[in-house]
């Protein structure tokens, strides 16, 4: 049985793991479905906009393992003093582990067009920055004439990289325009939008539409469990990081305190997990 399992090896999860290690925790594991630590901001590492994050995740050395390619697919919360049970889907096996304390640091995804009910055709070429960035990293340009609509530094960082790759990029944030219709039967060919200042209808033509607004907390594995989430599926916590279930905590962009830019994921670990750190300190005794 583990003393602590951290779900998510992103910004919050790794920060929490380091802190736990500082406090002397040894019987722990960090679990992440990706093939290395870094979470959803991984594609942006090395870019100037994500300098701080890149530094945070360089040279991670922990006294306990990070299981990669491992995803939590089930949680059975232990009643009273019983440990919590987690089912982890790994490459070779589905493993059941038990832990006294569970920290959910599973992050969040960019919320795509469909979740916002943006009307129009459903062509290819419409994607979130996360998808576009990863295609770029694989040596594939999503398109040539790009419209990027979004508020986050991921959008801005992607736009720079697209321009570097020779794309023509038009950029807006979600306050400036309201997307009203997507055109294109197999590939996107254009977007109609309303300028929120003038309320005029405008039209953009191109082959790629990068869109995201708000975020989706990655809490799918909590469906059907007693851990309470809000209407946006974020894990509800108090200011010390406790969920409604004893010995289950949450931190970062999977909670309502996180933000779409993932810009406070690290400091939330330091400032809003007092309940967990208190427990970790008393483990030493």
């Amino acid at each position, binding site marked *: 049985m583990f003393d602590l399992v951290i779900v998510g090896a992103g910004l919050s999860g790794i920060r929490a793991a380091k802190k736990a290690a500082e406090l002397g925790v040894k019987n722990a594991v960090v679990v992440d*479905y990706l093939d290395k630590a870094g979470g959803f901001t991984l594609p942006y590492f090395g870019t100037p906009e994500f300098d701080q994050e890149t530094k945070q995740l360089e040279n991670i050395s922990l006294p306990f393992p990070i299981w990669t*390619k*491992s*995803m939590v*697919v089930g949680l059975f919360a232990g009643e009273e003093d019983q440990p919590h049970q987690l089912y982890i*889907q*790994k*490459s*070779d*096996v*589905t493993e059941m582990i038990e832990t006294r304390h569970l920290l959910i640091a599973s992050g969040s*995804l*960019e919320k*795509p*067009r*469909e*979740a916002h*009910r943006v*009307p*129009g*055709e*459903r*062509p*290819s*070429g419409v*994607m*979130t920055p*996360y*998808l576009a960035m*990863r*295609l770029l990293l*694989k*040596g*594939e*340009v*999503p*398109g*040539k*004439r790009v419209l990027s609509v979004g508020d986050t530094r991921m959008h801005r960082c992607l736009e720079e990289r697209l321009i570097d*790759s*020779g*794309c023509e990029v038009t950029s807006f944030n979600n306050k400036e325009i309201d997307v*009203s*219709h*997507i*055109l294109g*039967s*197999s*590939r996107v060919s254009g977007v109609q939008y309303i300028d929120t200042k003038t309320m005029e209808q405008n039209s953009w033509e191109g*082959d790629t539409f990068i869109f995201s607004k708000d975020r*989706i907390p*990655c809490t*799918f594995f909590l469906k059907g469990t007693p851990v309470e989430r809000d*209407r946006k599926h974020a894990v509800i916590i108090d200011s010390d990081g406790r969920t409604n279930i004893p010995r289950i905590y949450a931190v970062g962009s999977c909670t309502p305190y996180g933000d779409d830019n993932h810009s406070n994921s690290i400091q939330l670990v330091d400032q809003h997990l007092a309940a967990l750190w208190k427990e970790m300190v008393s483990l030493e005794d």
Partner: protein
Amino acid sequence: MQSWGGDMQRGSYDVLVIGGGVVGCSILRELAFYDLKVGLIEKQPDLCEGTSKANSGIVHTGFDAKPGTVEAECLKRSRAVWPELIEKLRIPYIPCGAVMVATNEEEWEIIQKKYVPNAAANGVDVEIIDRETCLGMNPDLSAAVVGGLVIPGEAICDPFWATRAHAELAALNGAEILLGNGVVSINEIEDGYRVFLENNRQIETRFLVNAAGLWSDEIARMVGDTSFSISPRKGEFLLIEEEIQISQIILPVPTAKSKGILVSPVVFGGFLLGPTAEDISDKMDRSTSRSGIEQIKEGTDKLIPGVGMRDSIRQFAGVRAVCSTGDFVIRPSKVSPNMVHAAGIRSTGLSASPGIALMVLEQLQSVGLELFPKENAIDSLEDIFDKESVEGSGEVVCICRSVTMSEILGALNRPICPATIDGVKRRTGATLGECQGNVCIPQIMELIRDKTGQTTLFKGLQGSLLSKPMGEGGAGRV
């Protein structure tokens, strides 16, 4: 362009089916049980890209079909065959039943005066239930409900699975399938046809089955047959992710134009609201609209108040093929009898697909096709294709839906699997979750490329190239 079973380069066929939707695939499955050289041609890069792609997935009993129509007859035959088909093709299927609810006295009258006798005329079991029973089985229903008509035989299934499972069984029995290539023209020759495809390919066949859905009138015209025309009628859907307290498919009392906007559980989870019914002019128009979403909200509001406001992750639109004759057209062409039509399947294609196939075979026989059952025909899909047991492939690729790499590899190993992301989506459920593929698509692309060796990938329809390698002629424009 991809092909299975053979590459249709040369040789002559006994029967060629035009159209890879649920109807065409079902017909191919039936044909493949006989000693015949048969094939199917589909214009898009995958099966199931037309009307079969975007529908409610409901297996209708036909209780409300107009008695005496070809549609009613096909549905009747299908009812007898469905239980076996589900088992043999392993179709995900939930026999949840449906209830047609009356939200006022007028609708209650219509149910009792029209639908009860209609169901009886079609031989379908139904049961009148009172308000309390209705609400007991479906607590989220509007308090205005007066009563309901339960049709226990109605069910939901996975329409993608059904479509390709028909075709997979056909392929296992030696049928050939050509994807990504469409029919351009048809010449009559002695004892059959020469069919011209895109890329100047030609195939000869003794008989043709016209199962081209929305384009079946255009195929008919290629042999000079103008006896029917198809007009598109769009239906928009909203997929709700939140839990709705219903245990059955909730049907409104229909209008003249369509079965109405319903609320239905979905085999993959979630609930479907829709469809609308809008006559459009472009057969390829699958756009969703603000007004469509409003109509869905309005239509479902009277069944389940506020349901249209719940969390949704996806909206889509399908297009029905509405026939000028008002019924299915399942008969030889009067102009060129070796072509048998399976056209005008407006609304119940999935449900009627087994019965349509049987009727088409009879029609083919009536114009001279001889049917000798194949020895050792395979009659069911084995489970062996479900998971590729490659070591170290248990990791999750689609995190919203927990779809593992081994499931995706398994899908790519199935008898027919194209090199499109939508193809993987329909076979595994990947990309159907909250993030709509924005997380898992790159990995899926890699798996498809490794498996098929194809470097350029399509998302779905021809021309819907997802991205282009940077080296190839610069930043790609599609």
